[in-house]
């Protein structure tokens, strides 16, 4: 199987393909097809042309622009680019142009990547369908009556549609992996601390992680290798440089011990074809020399509840900064407290208000220990349970999403049903572990199905070998 991004970088580096031509072709495609999909909030055509010309000039001068030479990359619109509007899908950041650029974006550019635009998302990354964007929903390229998943639905749809060959998103409870599964692309949530979050607008700081979207595992490895590693601007980074993933990608799975998580796979709510995909993926790994067993991680059944206390609690604190003082929207009022409250009422959408309220309540006097404290203890249990399972397993499998892409509007009336979309992806965020979604054919109505590969902290090398084996065997 070819890897479109790495193949393109090779062609651009060797001078057989011009980055400028690639960019022009992608921009024309976006202009023709994005009005229907609405993957982008902002297309950066002029900047992309300038960057592409610089790459072509470097190649012509005999220089190597880097491992992402000429590759069009799309950015979730919660990643800052200096001087470029960054909205987080919210009205409250109206008109804001960040005074600095995210470290991941600097690294993409330094590696020769071409930033093509900013993609749609659920407001402040809170959602599982990209319907919570203040600027309207994104549609699934496989069926425009369906959601692309979320919250990084714009990046997932843009990569699935071929607008960008690579994309960046953020994953707090599944916001990269779930849309990747629903759009039929590869999506990776790296180990917590592996990628700098400098310039990522914060949602829940003990959970957020930036990661890649790609159409192949190899392309995803290429992008993660570029963005990973410590950064003096993010004190929560793991201090050591992680090993490159590309060199060991094809080392195979012979001898690896794989566990299927019972509590996330063999339960009501998981569609039959999704469960069948996990079974088929496990059988393929067995055929490639791995051993497979069912494993139990009992505490994961409490993951959803714990997550929907911890993430809103952290969000209620992080989003306190949107107060009409330093950036974005202000609704004028006589005194500062009234101005704060009026600004936030006008600027935030319903889901963000709901989570701020939930988080503030969970942290308030009298309820702190019963809700937030208990959720933090559940987090400890999940970490313990996973550590025990990883004594006898190298990687784990589960569905990424319990269902294939659902209809636009199907879950907007009931927050709890929407939250259930994240049940399989949440444990890795709570534990700070690595996980990724790999496409495994299609299910009902020809919609993509994703299989999730989970690994312990810094387990990316094994996780990518498993993912590569799955991609080679996938229907």
């Amino acid at each position, binding site marked *: 199987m070819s890897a479109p991004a790495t193949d393109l970088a090779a062609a651009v580096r060797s001078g057989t393909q011009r980055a400028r031509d690639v960019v022009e072709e992608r921009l024309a495609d976006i202009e023709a097809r994005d009005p229907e999909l609405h993957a982008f909030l902002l297309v950066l055509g002029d900047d992309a042309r300038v960057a592409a010309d610089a790459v072509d000039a470097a190649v012509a001068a005999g220089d190597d622009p880097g491992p992402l030479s000429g590759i069009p990359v799309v950015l979730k619109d919660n990643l800052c680019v200096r001087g470029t509007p960054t909205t987080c899908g919210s009205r409250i950041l109206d*008109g*804001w*142009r960040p*005074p*600095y650029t995210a470290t991941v974006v600097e690294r993409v550019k330094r590696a020769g990547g071409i930033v093509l635009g900013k993609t749609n998302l659920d407001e402040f990354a809170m959602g599982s369908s990209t319907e919570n964007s203040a600027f309207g929903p994104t549609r699934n390229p496989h069926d425009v009556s369906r959601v692309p998943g979320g919250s990084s639905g714009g990046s997932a749809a843009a990569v699935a549609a071929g607008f960008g060959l690579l994309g960046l998103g953020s994953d707090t409870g599944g916001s990269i992996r779930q849309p990747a599964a629903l759009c039929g692309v590869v999506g990776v949530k790296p180990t*917590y*601390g592996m990628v700098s979050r400098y310039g990522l607008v914060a949602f829940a700081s*003990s959970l957020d992680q930036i990661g890649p979207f790609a159409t192949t595992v190899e392309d995803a490895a290429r992008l993660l290798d570029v963005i990973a590693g410590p950064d003096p601007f993010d004190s*929560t980074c793991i201090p050591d440089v992680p090993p490159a993933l590309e060199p060991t990608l094809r080392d195979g799975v012979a001898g690896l011990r794989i566990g299927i998580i019972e509590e996330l796979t063999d339960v009501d709510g998981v569609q039959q074809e999704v469960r069948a995909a996990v079974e088929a993926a496990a059988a393929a790994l067995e055929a490639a020399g791995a051993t497979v067993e069912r494993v139990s991680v009992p505490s994961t059944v*409490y993951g*959803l*509840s*714990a997550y*929907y206390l911890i993430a809103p609690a952290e969000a*209620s604190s992080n989003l306190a900064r949107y*107060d*009409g*003082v*330093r*950036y*974005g929207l*202000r609704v*004028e*009022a*006589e*005194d*500062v*407290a*009234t*101005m704060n*409250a009026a600004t*936030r*009422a006008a600027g935030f959408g319903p889901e963000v*208000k*709901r989570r*701020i*309220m*939930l988080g*503030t*309540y969970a942290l*308030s006097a009298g309820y702190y220990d*019963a*809700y937030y*404290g*208990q*959720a*933090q*203890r*559940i*987090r*400890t*249990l999940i*970490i313990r349970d996973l550590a025990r399972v990883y004594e006898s397993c190298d990687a784990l499998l589960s569905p990424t999403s319990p269902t294939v892409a659902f209809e636009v509007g199907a879950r907007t009336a009931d*927050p*709890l049903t929407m*939250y259930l979309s994240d049940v399989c992806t949440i444990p890795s965020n*709570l*534990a*700070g572990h690595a996980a990724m979604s790999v496409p495994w054919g299609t299910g009902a109505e020809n919609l993509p199905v994703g299989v999730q590969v989970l690994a312990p*902290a810094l387990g990316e090398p094994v996780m990518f070998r498993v993912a590569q084996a799955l991609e080679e065997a996938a229907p």
Partner: protein
Amino acid sequence: MAEPITREEVEHVARLARLALTPEEVERLTGELGVILDHAGDVSALDLGDVEPTAHPLPLVNVLRADEVRPTLDRDEVLAAAPDAEDGRFRVPRILDAP
């Protein structure tokens, strides 16, 4: 645990969170938060007294950098993004003796 949240509590929390909610929003959130907190009740009902809480997945403490003067964000560029600024500072409506 998981007693349903009351309308008065929702109004109190909205004040803590500096959110000016409409009566309709208070009504709707009272119902929605009740449902979500009821679901979270399975967590609050567990006996986990002997389990240490986890606040953060990495065992990092006191990450320090060298105490060196470095360039920082440009003040004019930062203030240009603010809704109101004056004399190199953010400008806000009155704080003291507010009506």
